[in-house]
């Protein structure tokens, strides 16, 4: 049997190490998302594929992390087929529900068109029927509902109405149940949080803060232009400071959307959160570039490489301020719900989609992204899911992902973006080597090393 060096290896430049004579590199095998520190000598042998010169131990490790693979393997085919097998085996039924088309905020970069509509009684029944129907085709062991917006907490009445019905459905099918909420945080009062967790099975909440008050309020203000940062942050503090917060079983993450207008505010926000001792209360803090809502918002987004460079500084800032974020990507066999055959997104009008970013956005109305509407009868909902073939398209060399070394840990970024001709690569693509160097520093010298680099 013959071997070859996998195409899916990322190797850093040489790193000097005061403690040892040899220079080293970090090798990241994206097929398994496992890393290994290697000497330059070993690197040289790998480059030459001089397998018989490799110590058995090194060879076995490299083989185990799939940095070395069988020579005859067509790797991209393997990766895509593994992703597809993973999707087929997934026993968790994931559905996204947008209970209302309303949001209190008027963020300049938001492409959604908000209105006061909520999911009505008939739509609720039909959505339940639609989700129920999925159990006939596959044996699930878990039902997971994501409450998305507009602002889902404006639709709290719908969450209250639907949750017991979903829980009962899960129980009937011997499934466990949980849910998550992606919210602007304005209505996330302490008692609402407790209700969500204790009554509605919410185990994850994501709140967006676009920088410190000054920057956040300049973009995430109410529709009437009023500030929101202090209200949101007070809500968060009330929750985080509950003595039982950690034992309630619901995590809260903070997302910070950036473009060039607010990127300078990320570090002050990290410092602000740290000053309130939230390091071990926030599940994770992450910065996301503004994406396209079918509008021009992404054009203001930092150039991807610039964003990736900044992201390293933001990671270091987190370490210096006592946060301990992970930064190496894990494998991503399922890029998003659009490549699964059973996950759907329901909006407040009863429209059904296969992507979370298409509801309430004018440019997607009357496109194939709207699979149908539950009011027109469930049988009228299109079986054709436009993004479902994405993995096959990658296998057919239709996107740069087909040759990209990051494919196993990226999954292809965002299928919809590639379809629209927008490069979908996440920051990892551009800063993975820097992240591997941080990983090396962390491994060699512990967390202090990262905090010092920042200084």
């Amino acid at each position, binding site marked *: *049997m013959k*071997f070859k060096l996998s195409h899916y290896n990322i190797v850093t430049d040489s790193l000097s190490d005061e403690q040892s004579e040899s220079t080293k590199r970090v090798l990241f095998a994206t097929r398994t998302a496992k890393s290994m520190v290697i000497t330059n000598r070993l690197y040289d042998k790998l480059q030459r594929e001089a*397998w*018989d010169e490799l110590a*058995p131990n090194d*060879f*076995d490790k490299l*083989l*185990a992390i799939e940095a070395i693979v*069988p020579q*005859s*393997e067509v790797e991209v085919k*393997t990766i895509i*087929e*593994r992703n*597809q*097998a*993973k999707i*087929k*085996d997934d*026993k968790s039924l994931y559905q996204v529900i947008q209970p209302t088309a309303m949001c209190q905020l008027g963020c300049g970069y938001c492409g959604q068109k908000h209105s006061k509509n909520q999911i009505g009684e008939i739509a609720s029944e039909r959505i339940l029927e639609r989700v129920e129907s999925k159990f006939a085709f596959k044996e699930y062991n878990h039902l997971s509902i994501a409450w998305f917006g507009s602002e889902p907490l404006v639709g709290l009445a719908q969450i209250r109405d639907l949750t017991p019905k979903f829980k009962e459905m899960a129980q009937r099918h011997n499934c466990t149940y949980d849910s998550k909420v992606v919210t602007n945080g304005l209505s996330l009062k302490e008692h609402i949080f407790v209700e969500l967790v204790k009554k509605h099975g919410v185990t994850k909440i994501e709140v967006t803060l676009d920088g410190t008050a000054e920057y956040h309020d300049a973009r995430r203000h109410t529709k009437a232009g009023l500030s929101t940062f202090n209200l949101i942050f007070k809500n968060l503090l009330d929750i985080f400071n509950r003595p039982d917060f950690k034992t309630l079983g619901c995590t809260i993450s903070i997302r910070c959307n950036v473009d060039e207008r607010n990127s300078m505010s990320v570090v002050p926000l990290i410092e602000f959160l740290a000053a309130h001792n939230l390091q071990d209360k926030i599940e994770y803090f992450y910065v996301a570039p503004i994406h396209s809502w079918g509008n021009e918002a992404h054009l203001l987004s930092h150039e991807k490489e610039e964003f990736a460079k900044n992201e390293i500084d933001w990671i270091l800032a987190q370490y210096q301020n006592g946060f301990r974020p992970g930064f190496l990507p894990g494998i991503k066999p399922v890029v998003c719900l659009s490549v699964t055959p059973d996950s759907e997104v329901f909006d407040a009008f009863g429209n059904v989609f296969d992507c979370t970013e298409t509801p309430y956005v004018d440019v997607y109305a009357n496109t194939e992204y709207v699979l149908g509407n539950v009011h027109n009868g469930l049988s009228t909902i299109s079986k054709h899911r436009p993004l479902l073939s994405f993995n096959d398209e990658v296998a057919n060399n239709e996107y740069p992902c087909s040759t990209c070394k990051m494919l196993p840990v990226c999954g292809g970024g965002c299928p919809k973006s590639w379809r629209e001709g927008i490069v979908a690569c996440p920051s990892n693509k551009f800063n993975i080597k820097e992240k591997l160097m941080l990983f090396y520093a962390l491994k060699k010298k512990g967390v202090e090393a990262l905090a010092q680099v920042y200084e």
Partner: protein
Amino acid sequence: MQSNDLFILEAIDNLQYNQQNNGNIARGDLIHGNVYGEILDGLVKDYVSNMELRGLNYIWGKYDKALTEARRNNLEQSQQLLSEVEAIQAEYDPNTPLYALINVAALPMKAYLLYRNSAFKEAESLLFQAIENDIALIKDGFYILEYHRIQQLHNINRLHFKQGKLLEGASVIHQALRYILYEHLPAMSSDWSIKSLQQAPDSLRSAMFLQLSLEPIGVFLHHILQEKELFNAAFANLTFFEPRTSDEAVMLQWFEIKELFFKAEDNNQFLKEAIEFISKTGSEFDILKLSLIANISDALKKTSVYTIEYHQKIVAFSSQLKVPDRHKQVCLTYVSRVLES
């Protein structure tokens, strides 16, 4: 109350759960355990070149991963890994010992995936192929594979049980056990090698013996009304061997107590020995105790000292046993029925 029944009350009053676990019993299949694996690895190293060994280990590892995914009920991912590794195996010459060595892992794994997909016939055929595949290798010095062949008998037994063919499954276990304990050649397949069987360490024989016995005992609990027939089909006449390890001694004692129960000649003697067994034996044998508890409840009912209070003490004792819940529940349901009858 007859005075010679009184010892039973005392014994039940003093019943204590023995938490001790000597940890000798392998979890899962022995064939994935250390003794077997280490010996096989050693033999392989002497047999193939270093480069061949790399390939072989890679392929075995991959079949193992496919098996793990199938066990986790990730059947598509298992199939995917299988397709990947089959493509590599196809590059080897099927007429070489190396190919046969690959098949040592490949055939049972493929059979397992077929079993998980309810393709029982095809799975059984592959297991027989696995038994045959080992013959030439054993002749070439891979004596340890005799246990791999016995493992396939166990897998065939599992196939039968899964299809509800209990007696057929029990009879396969019986053949395997008689081979291990008495060196009586199994009627299934051919070329069994007693010399190879004897070459393996006692600990391996003992572990295989336990693996073959304990799993069916759990299954029989779910068919308790048929227990005598099943016991005889799987374990009849297994009390004439010389135990070579302490685990074998425990098994021997259990077989003797069970036979005493099924003979139904001396109820008190059975109760005395059974109660002693369940209070003295370590927790790794809890499944044996659970099986006896069902019989104890029957025997207790026949005595003059039977009271609900004592019956309940037995039930309380059972609840401490470290056995899968499904076994415990079915046994306790039976015990309650005896109580109500």
